[in-house]
């Protein structure tokens, strides 16, 4: 076990439940999308669940997060209501943004979610600014920015990390390296390392197996502890993989089949499941039953959201100004 904390059944199962929920949700979005039910483009988190769940399980409820275009997992792991999330993705009035934002714009003050984001790198300054608030107001919460490997080439990310390091802001940067930005391989567009991009500012970096939720959790706990003690920012670089490509419907012809198979074998849910069984914290049947239950719940969520009304014309200008 990679964490110094003891893996208990309760904790292990909560992580398992968190990841399965995301997977079930995303697979449901995928089938809705294939059926033409999801307006626009949506980017699925399947395969990367260990990152959102591993980090979120190290956070307190008032910690703030920012996310990116591949953000449903972060929302769910932070406690989003699956119905409101699904409703927003489907453009329904019950959604977090009354259906006006969609998948790339899920903001929720209740779960301190400053938003998924359609601008690559766009959430990083928001989280860094939230951390500035925490520091200025001597609050005990911290901020987490989730972003992809592609965002690590946006200049603003460097600018933020410089200031976070200078001012020892309580912010945790979580880079999910899924080896691609859209259809382009990371090595083709990224000189040097991802870790080096924070290390240059004196920010501690942990490079971890992003398919191992316990490893992610352990690294996040360390980073969170440092931030709460006033020691400033950290970066986690999590090695992971997009199971469904860039967006729901991406045929992924640009990917190498052997590599994809290799990553499929590392499924974070299967991995944790095996470990729970090996540690006698759960048996395979109960896990499979749990999975079925969650899938059924999410299917119900989707039906509920689909049945909800779409926004009326009159709402077009609501909440433009205060």
């Amino acid at each position, binding site marked *: 076990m990679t964490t110094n904390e003891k893996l208990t059944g309760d904790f292990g199962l909560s992580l398992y439940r968190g990841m399965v929920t995301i997977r079930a949700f995303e697979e449901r979005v995928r089938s809705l999308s294939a059926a033409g039910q999801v307006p*626009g483009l949506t980017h699925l988190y399947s395969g990367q669940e260990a990152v959102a769940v591993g980090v979120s399980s190290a956070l307190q409820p008032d910690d703030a997060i920012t996310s990116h275009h591949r953000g449903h997992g972060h929302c769910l792991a932070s406690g989003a209501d699956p119905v409101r999330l699904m409703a927003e993705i489907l453009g329904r009035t019950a959604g977090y943004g009354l*259906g006006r934002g969609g998948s790339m714009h899920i903001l929720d003050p209740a779960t301190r979610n400053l938003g998924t984001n359609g601008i690559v790198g766009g959430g990083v300054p928001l989280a860094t600014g939230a951390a500035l608030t925490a520091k200025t107001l001597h609050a005990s919460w911290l901020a987490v920015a989730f972003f992809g490997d592609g965002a690590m080439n*946006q200049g603003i990310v460097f600018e933020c990390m410089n200031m976070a390091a200078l001012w020892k802001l309580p912010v945790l940067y979580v880079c999910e390296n899924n080896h691609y930005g859209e259809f382009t391989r990371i090595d083709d567009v990224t000189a040097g390392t991802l870790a080096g991009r924070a290390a240059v500012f004196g920010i501690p970096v942990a490079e971890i197996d992003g398919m191992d939720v316990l490893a992610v959790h352990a690294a996040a706990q360390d980073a969170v502890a440092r931030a709460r003690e006033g020691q400033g920012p950290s970066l986690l670089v999590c090695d992971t993989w997009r199971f469904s490509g860039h967006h729901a419907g991406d045929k992924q012809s640009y990917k190498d089949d052997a590599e994809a198979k290799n990553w499929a074998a590392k499924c974070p849910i299967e991995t944790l499941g095996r470990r729970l069984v090996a540690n006698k914290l759960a048996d395979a049947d109960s896990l499979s039953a749990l999975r079925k239950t969650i899938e059924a719940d999410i299917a119900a969520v989707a039906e509920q959201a689909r049945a909800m009304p779409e926004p009326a014309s009159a709402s077009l200008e609501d909440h433009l100004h205060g």
Partner: protein
Amino acid sequence: MAERQVTFKDAVLEALAEEMRADPSVVLIGEDIGAAGGVFLQTKGLFEEFGASRVIDTPISESAIVGMAIGAAMTGLRPVVEIMFGDFITLGMDQLVNQAAKVRYMSAGGFTVPLVLRTAIGVGGNLGPQHSQSLHAWVAHVPGLKVVMPSNAADAKGLMKAAIRDGDPVVFFESRSSYNTKGPVSDGEHVVPIGKAAVTREGRNVSIVAVGAMVGVALQVAERLAGEDISVEVVDVRSLVPLDEGTILKSVKKTSRALVLDAGYAQFGVTGEIAALIAEQAFDWLDAPVMRLAAPNVPIPFSRTLEPLVIPSRDQAAAKVRELMGTR
């Protein structure tokens, strides 16, 4: 010359390929435009034909992409930069405005910036508030840039060729909603000069002065209103900078009534400039106030029910024209 039916997107692609064949200094720079062929397949086949040194796939670094393209343009290349969505030109505005637009002026012609920045704009497909904006008014505001916005395949091809050959930085706005619309494009060399509007349909009662994809709406409105005995002339602005004031004013002086139509945000946008121009320069000819129709002043909503409301519609435009005819 023979004509073929070509989509808007393929017309641009033809222009790119032809200019790249003719001039080895033409290069493309952008995200996912290489082997992937672009997220809209708008550069399909070019990587295979011209290779990685002329179809340059970049990191997600819009500011530097624009800035580097300017340096490249100052030293001998003719870069065509692609910004994937028009919403992201926000990230390149400093380079475009503080460098590209001013280099020729500040160097007294010593350096030029033969750069094309192309970007896909507009509403459609429920891509939400950060993937749907049409910010062409910004670029048109800054002296030193040229700004074009074709409405059909032939102009898309002809203006892209002109833009690539131009010695100034040209921002080339492509309405996503036009990408798959077909139109006649002549075989062989076809160049449309920058700075010339086109009267796309002649009429007697009202001029609709339309920009980009709104020209299509204007033509449909003209057709519909012909049945109501209202004769609409349609002026396709084509170039915002330089603006062909003469063609616009000539049309309005003939019809005495004008509606200006644009898909960008209404407030402080493109319709203001053109309407103010007409109201000042054609005042004595006007039989009714110059009216405007543009997108409402809200972020562009994602939902299927709301998104269409921010696109100026045929119904809205027709109602305005009727109002122009009816009021006095």
